[in-house]
């Protein structure tokens, strides 16, 4: 029987909200053993889910693979957002892939920049 009542939950999580262009945005960041997960929602649902990872290769310059795995496939700003974040993850020294979930009311560059800076300010990598 597990009697250790001070065990911390193994997944580190961070949950905060902020306003971006007038829309209340809630962000959850979770760190698993082999992935980072970032959820940013303004619509009360997870929205579009993207997967971004660093490619394994011999070249010095890292390359990344970003794809939409669920949801809108015709919003390039979402892909750009995932691409920015995975590069930041990589530059910070981690090679864990990123699962990014964006449920947004608007897909303007300003909104996505706001999300990127909020996530980076509170990053878990």
């Amino acid at each position, binding site marked *: *029987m*597990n*009697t250790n*009542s001070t*065990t911390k*939950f*193994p*997944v580190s*999580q961070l*949950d*905060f*909200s902020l306003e971006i262009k007038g829309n*209340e945005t*809630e962000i*959850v960041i*979770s760190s*698993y*053993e*082999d*992935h980072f*997960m970032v*959820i940013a*929602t303004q619509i*009360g*649902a*997870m929205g579009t*889910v993207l*997967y971004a990872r660093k490619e394994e290769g011999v070249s010095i310059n890292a390359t990344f693979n970003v794809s939409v*795995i*669920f949801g809108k496939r015709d919003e390039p700003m979402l892909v750009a957002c995932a691409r920015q974040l995975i590069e930041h993850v990589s530059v910070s020294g981690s090679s864990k892939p990123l*699962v990014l*979930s964006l449920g947004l009311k608007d897909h303007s560059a300003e909104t996505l920049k706001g999300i990127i800076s909020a996530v980076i300010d509170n990053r878990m990598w």
Partner: protein
Amino acid sequence: MDSEGLEKEIEELKLQEKKGDVHAYAQGQLQITSFSELVNDVCLHFQIIRFPKQIYVWIGYNSVKLGHMYAAAPTRPNNVVSVTSILGGASDNTGSGIAHRLVLKTGLNIILACNIPKNSPMLQTEAEKILIQKLISLGYTKSRLGGTTL
């Protein structure tokens, strides 16, 4: 009811809380519940994020890996449940069945990430049982008479 009996019941309640070691917090619209349970020498971790119209669940079996991810929802016609694998795995892996039944129980869209290995039906059943019990206690499931609880 005498006060001694009441006190004992309250003690038991407190003990149960500690055993489960549930971390739950709500900020804004989201409610996050995370807890771990030891089942037959195996540690199962659960992370539940409740959105207004959706639930995200992660089930960890011993490790803290994300595992395979599935999306499930009631779809046309007649709100029949559809499940698809969105990260890793195929449609016959452990998580897809759980995702399917979660939609039936909650009536909401479900995103489930689960790293329970294939071909472990006992473990899958146990994990699902614990998860459903927790969802019921949190009030996320549909009432028996029908209708969705929000």
